[in-house]
């Protein structure tokens, strides 16, 4: 089965092949990365590949897992749930038992469903799905699965952190919600409505907008509506072109509000923010960023940027995921998902930022400190900018893990 290998991966593979001649051939632990690698979302998928390749190189440099090397194989799911199922099948065929996928809650839901059924129907050949970016809360609530682990904070956790931060901002009086009209946007909207009301009963929600996903070319009409509502802050889960276009239209109309976003930092986001001059007004909520001030983090960022043509380490969660995976496999002394999944449940892990985090056993959701940061011209101890704009993320607040502890409705069925 021909698969695409990327850059360093190629070099590593060549090297491994060279070594393979000398030493007895070593079995590889295959990690299948399934994400959009073509189409509009491809930049996000391709940058994800670099993250995983970087992690695998690091793990292999330390001797791999259980004496075996890890190998990354990549598949393009074109962001479609059904292509995801096909890609997963191809990955399993190629010998992968660890699947990872991030983007698109539709694709992720299909993946969870596929993995559940596959493991049910193929006892002894279990696979595990490591989720690094799909944040629909349902995946660790109603749809939770023993075979699914999530390292990104789901949208309710992020909203919990965001509203904790807003609690300390008396200047916020009127909030406007604008989200994409699909499951993730709905989740953000629902959480925002509930949590803002609970934490700041005095704040008025002056608008609650849903717009079609990735179809709007001109957000000016929406911005006119926000303006007319008299809002001082906007909460949005928009990503991709939907956030860039929204910010651009807002700058054109001279809309003076604070933006509380989930994904302003995504591909193209910082460029749009810089271009529209929204200094200090765009916030994002993440599990970390380039300018979190620890020497380890700086060293990590520097090394990665050197290897990826200056692009930043977007996903601290990929580091968490892969290091915990390697740890679980080594501790379980097995590369069999059925065995090492047990080790992942409830595993405690020390983040690069110095604090502790853990994988909750009840729902397989990772809990960690959250960071609210805003994009601003580099100053003081900020070391890294984004997309060569000269602007970087600066921590506005750190929300400790305890404040984001949302309950779960998950009733996990353990496989026999």
């Amino acid at each position, binding site marked *: 089965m021909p698969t695409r290998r990327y850059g360093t991966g190629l070099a590593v593979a060549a090297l491994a092949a060279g070594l393979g001649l000398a030493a007895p051939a070593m079995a590889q632990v295959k990690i299948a990365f399934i994400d959009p690698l073509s*189409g509009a979302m491809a930049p996000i998928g391709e940058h994800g590949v670099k993250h995983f390749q970087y992690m695998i190189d690091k793990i292999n440099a330390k001797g791999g897992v259980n004496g075996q090397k890890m190998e990354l194989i990549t598949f393009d799911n074109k962001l479609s749930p059904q292509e995801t199922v096909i890609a997963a099948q191809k990955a399993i065929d190629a010998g992968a038992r660890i699947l990872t996928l991030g983007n698109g809650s539709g694709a992720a839901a299909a993946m969870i469903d596929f993995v559940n059924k596959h493991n049910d129907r193929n006892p002894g050949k279990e696979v595990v799905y490591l989720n690094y970016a799909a944040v629909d809360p349902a995946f660790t609530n109603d749809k939770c699965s023993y075979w699914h682990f999530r390292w990104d904070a789901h949208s309710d956790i992020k909203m919990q952190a965001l509203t904790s931060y807003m609690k300390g901002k008396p200047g916020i009086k009127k909030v406007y919600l604008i989200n994409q009209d699909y499951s993730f946007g709905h989740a953000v909207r629902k959480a925002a409505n509930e949590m803002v009301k609970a934490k700041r009963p005095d704040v008025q929600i002056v608008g609650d907008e849903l717009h079609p996903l*990735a*179809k709007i070319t001109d957000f000016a009409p929406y911005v006119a509506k926000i303006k007319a509502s008299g809002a001082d802050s906007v909460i949005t889960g928009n990503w991709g072109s939907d956030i860039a276009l929204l910010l651009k239209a807002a700058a054109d109309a001279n809309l003076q509000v604070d933006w509380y976003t989930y994904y302003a930092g995504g591909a193209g986001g910082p460029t749009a923010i810089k271009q529209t001059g929204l200094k200090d007004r765009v916030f994002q909520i993440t599990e970390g960023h380039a300018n979190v001030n620890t020497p380890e983090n700086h060293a990590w960022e520097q090394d990665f940027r050197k290897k990826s043509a200056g692009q930043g380490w977007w996903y601290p969660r990929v580091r968490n995921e892969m290091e915990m995976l390697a740890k679980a496999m080594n501790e379980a002394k097995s590369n069999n998902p059925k065995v090492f999944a047990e080790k992942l449940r409830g595993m405690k892990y020390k983040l690069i930022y110095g604090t502790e985090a853990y994988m909750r056993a009840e729902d397989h959701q990772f809990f960690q400190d959250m960071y609210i940061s805003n994009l601003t011209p580099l100053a003081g101890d900020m070391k890294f900018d984004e997309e060569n704009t000269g602007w970087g993320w600066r921590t506005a607040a750190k929300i400790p893990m305890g404040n984001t502890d949302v309950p779960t409705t998950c009733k996990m069925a353990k496989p026999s």
Partner: protein
Amino acid sequence: MLELVIFSTLNGVLYGMLLFLLASGLTLIFSMMGVLNFAHASFYMLGAYFGFQLSQWLNFWTALIVAPVLVGLIGAGVERWGLRTVHKWGHVAELLFTFGLAFVIEELVQMVWGKLPVDYRVPPLLDFPAFELFGTTYPAFRMFMLLISVAIFLVLLMVLTRSRIGLIIQAALSHPNMVAMLGHNVPKVFMLVFGCGCGLAAIAGVIAGPALVTQPSMAHVLGPILFVVVVFGGLGSLPGAFIASLLIGLIQTFAIAINYSLGDALASLGMARPLQGVLSDLWQVTVAQIGPVVPYLMLVLILVFRPTGLMGTRES
């Protein structure tokens, strides 16, 4: 409320005019040659990218002239060496040709300029607020876009009604065979129309690029709506396309401004909203969410009740 109405009208007219720039070329191509040009929006995208590249190398004003000419030449080339060969295999073949072309153009654009939006900026000369109303500014560049599209509409009207080639094109619209019999070089007229149509789309691209976002998916988003404009307005009718563009622009913009659902309407009539069944969602949907659906509904309805379209005189 008044400000919302004023700005929605402005935005709606602007969006409508942008649609018209694209649809004017498409309606000529479609009505004369019968080609459902699925790649038309791709030429709009090419215009935006060429505009971006040329304004990086030279400046925006040169780009505004040169980019449409380049795209027009490419369009003429596509007609001459592609479509003309395919023409003898019928309309479905032509359509599929443009289908494939749209794929190729999108992938080439992605290869050359990347998959992320490019930093295509408003020229400094026009980078100021044109006016301020109730605290909202309206960018000068948008006024400029409006001006350009109105100007092109007028020029197009003049050319079609006053010039000789315009008369031939008009004749070819309604009686293509007759025009050929009269000894005009119809393939040449086709090539000219196709090239000019692509050029017009490219002008729309050059001026829309900085105001909206220049990215590889920009063609996708506009594609099907153009057919709605052309068919709704009526085949072969430029005024029809003009009215349809404005109508769809205004409807889509105003739909966004209204927060009202069918359930609200029922509630105001004193009826409870049905909460059960698979269709229960229908009552919760607001007019704003319905907005993008409306054009297609209009398309189906007009074709069912008036197959010639709003101002058209023939069906195919």
